[in-house]
């Protein structure tokens, strides 16, 4: 467990140095994330230790609807991007340097390289949905995009996965963008946040 994932360089808010309930952007790219994809991915997840944890939610991976996520014990999240692709997010666990997995986990199940392929940014505070409307065509207001839902879309014309979930008892947007676009996304978000500087 670590709480030191967010470096000063990679934590920005929309109110300068004032720490209040305004928008804040965090970089969780050093936190752990993994995933599997394939026709047998849901069955493989059932066979893993996640099985018991999902039972506490009375959910099985096949019942996890695409573009939803559920919270697991240990501040972890299981996100379903389709019926064949699942990401496990561990925002409080620092990633370990480890070899990139090769080969399949099981027949019909392949590991994802999302630890390396995707940057992980977290947008917290209000009015994050209104701010994101500057960058993204999907309605992210709470009525249309409640906690526990996921949108795969574009943000500033870059592909992004947006997950609405609780982090440290606060509803936030996790934004996953291609690693090569991390700086672009960071700057685009900061630019969009600037408009809300005057919000009191």
């Amino acid at each position, binding site marked *: 467990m670590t709480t030191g994932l967010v470096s000063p360089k990679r934590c920005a808010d929309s109110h300068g140095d004032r720490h209040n309930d305004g928008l804040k952007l965090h970089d969780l790219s050093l936190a752990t994330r993994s995933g599997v994809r394939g026709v047998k991915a849901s069955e493989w997840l059932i066979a893993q230790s996640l099985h018991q944890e999902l039972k506490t939610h009375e959910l099985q991976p096949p019942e996890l609807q695409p573009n939803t996520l559920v919270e697991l014990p240990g501040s972890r999240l299981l996100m379903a991007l*389709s019926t064949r692709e699942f990401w496990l997010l561990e925002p409080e666990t620092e990633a370990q340097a480890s070899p990139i997995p090769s080969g399949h986990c099981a027949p019909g199940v392949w590991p994802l390289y999302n630890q390396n392929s995707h940057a992980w940014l977290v947008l917290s505070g209000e009015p994050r949905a209104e701010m994101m409307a500057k960058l993204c*065509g999907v309605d992210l207001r709470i009525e249309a995009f409640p906690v526990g839902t996921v949108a*795969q*879309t*574009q943000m500033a*014309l870059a592909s992004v996965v947006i997950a609405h979930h609780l982090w440290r008892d606060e509803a936030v947007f996790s934004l996953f963008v291609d690693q090569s676009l991390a700086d672009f996304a960071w700057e685009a978000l900061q630019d969009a946040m600037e408009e809300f500087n005057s919000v009191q």
Partner: protein
Amino acid sequence: MKIMHCPLNGPRNISEFAYGGQVEVMPDPHQCSDKDWASYVFYEKNAIGVVKEWWQHSPSSYWFIAERHNASDDILRTYDPSELFSERVDFTTGENEP
């Protein structure tokens, strides 16, 4: 902005999609002539009417099928490929394989 309905992700701006060609019956690559294979890969019928097309939602890399009128550009229906294809095509038994 034109909106397309992705069967997986719902309505999205058309800029999020990429066209992938018409849906056609694939000839057996090991039995058909080069001309038939080239026709399948490179040519389209290009007749006016409702056509079935492959489209990809780029942010999720999800391929699906759309029925579109290629004169009016009206998208009539979109659906998962499993409605038409029940099994994966295996290309691993070609004569050039090691």
